[in-house]
């Protein structure tokens, strides 16, 4: 959002029936509302995963330190770093430095792509072990169903995010879109990062092969 628009939005101290009760543009508010709805989708999948896990006695723990836990940690690093490059992209966009913004966003996309490649490779490893959404060697078919649905939906979000940011970087660098559009795309990207902060401990760390405990 440009400084003048922001000042205009912020001019009225409280909502008086004006156009922007939260002092933000409607695109940004729309993205926030989408994020809240999407957060509920992921929350229900995480709750579903936990439900199945508690109800199942011999829940599989296929995640070894190498490669799974190490790779998942590297993937977390990729996503966190891509979030910080996105922040710099949004900051450059708000200064109307279109070239710099596009470069930072391209770096963000590279972080996202690294995540997707590492994750797909991990999926390949599990599939080679015989894990599918319907069966696995440990006789707990729910594991594959829960794991692939949860991580698959997240990976879909990352892929869509890369495409979304690609369009934004390409067009913003060529003078289209406003800084607010870049900020809105940044909100989406940070949300995708945030969801992984729950999937990583819940699915990987709590199912590594050395963790002790009943379930």
């Amino acid at each position, binding site marked *: 959002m440009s400084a003048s628009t922001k000042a205009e939005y912020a001019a009225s101290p409280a909502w008086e029936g004006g156009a922007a009760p939260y002092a933000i543009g409607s695109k940004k508010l729309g993205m926030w509302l989408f994020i809240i709805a999407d957060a509920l989708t992921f929350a229900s999948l995480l709750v579903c995963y936990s439900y199945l896990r508690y109800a199942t006695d011999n829940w599989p723990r296929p995640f070894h330190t190498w490669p799974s836990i190490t790779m998942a940690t590297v993937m977390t690093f990729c996503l966190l770093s891509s979030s910080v490059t996105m922040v710099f992209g949004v900051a450059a966009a708000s200064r109307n430095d279109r070239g710099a913004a596009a470069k930072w966003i391209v770096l963000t996309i590279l972080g996202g792509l690294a995540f997707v490649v590492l994750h797909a490779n991990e999926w390949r490893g599990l599939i080679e072990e015989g894990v599918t959404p319907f069966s696995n060697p440990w006789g707990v078919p729910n594991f594959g169903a829960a794991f692939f649905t949860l991580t698959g939906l997240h990976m879909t979000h990352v892929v869509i995010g890369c495409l979304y940011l690609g369009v934004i970087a390409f067009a913003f660098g060529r003078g289209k879109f406003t800084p607010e559009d870049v900020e809105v795309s940044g909100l989406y990207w940070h949300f995708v990062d945030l969801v992984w902060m729950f999937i990583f401990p819940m699915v990987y760390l709590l199912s590594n092969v050395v963790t002790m405990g*009943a379930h």
Partner: protein
Amino acid sequence: MGAHAHSGGSKLYLSVWAWLLALTILEVILAYRQIPFQAMLVILMGLSVVKAALIISYFMHLRFERFSLFLTLFPALIFCVALLFVFFPDSIRLHDLRVP
């Protein structure tokens, strides 16, 4: 929280990033400790909530928006997520009251 005109500088973002990485490493280290499962679950989820709060407050700028935006979005989300836990007694029933 409030409608501040500024929204932090590079230093702030880099320190948030460093904190997020440090918390991630702490989680990985804790996952290899022999801690009872329930305690581990609470600790790891607690740390994840802290990381989520850092991302939402600083990277997503919510700390620099009007407080009314936070009040509109998050209490409802937290309430709905809490409602999802209504299913857990059934999960416990499936596990603990299983016919052998």
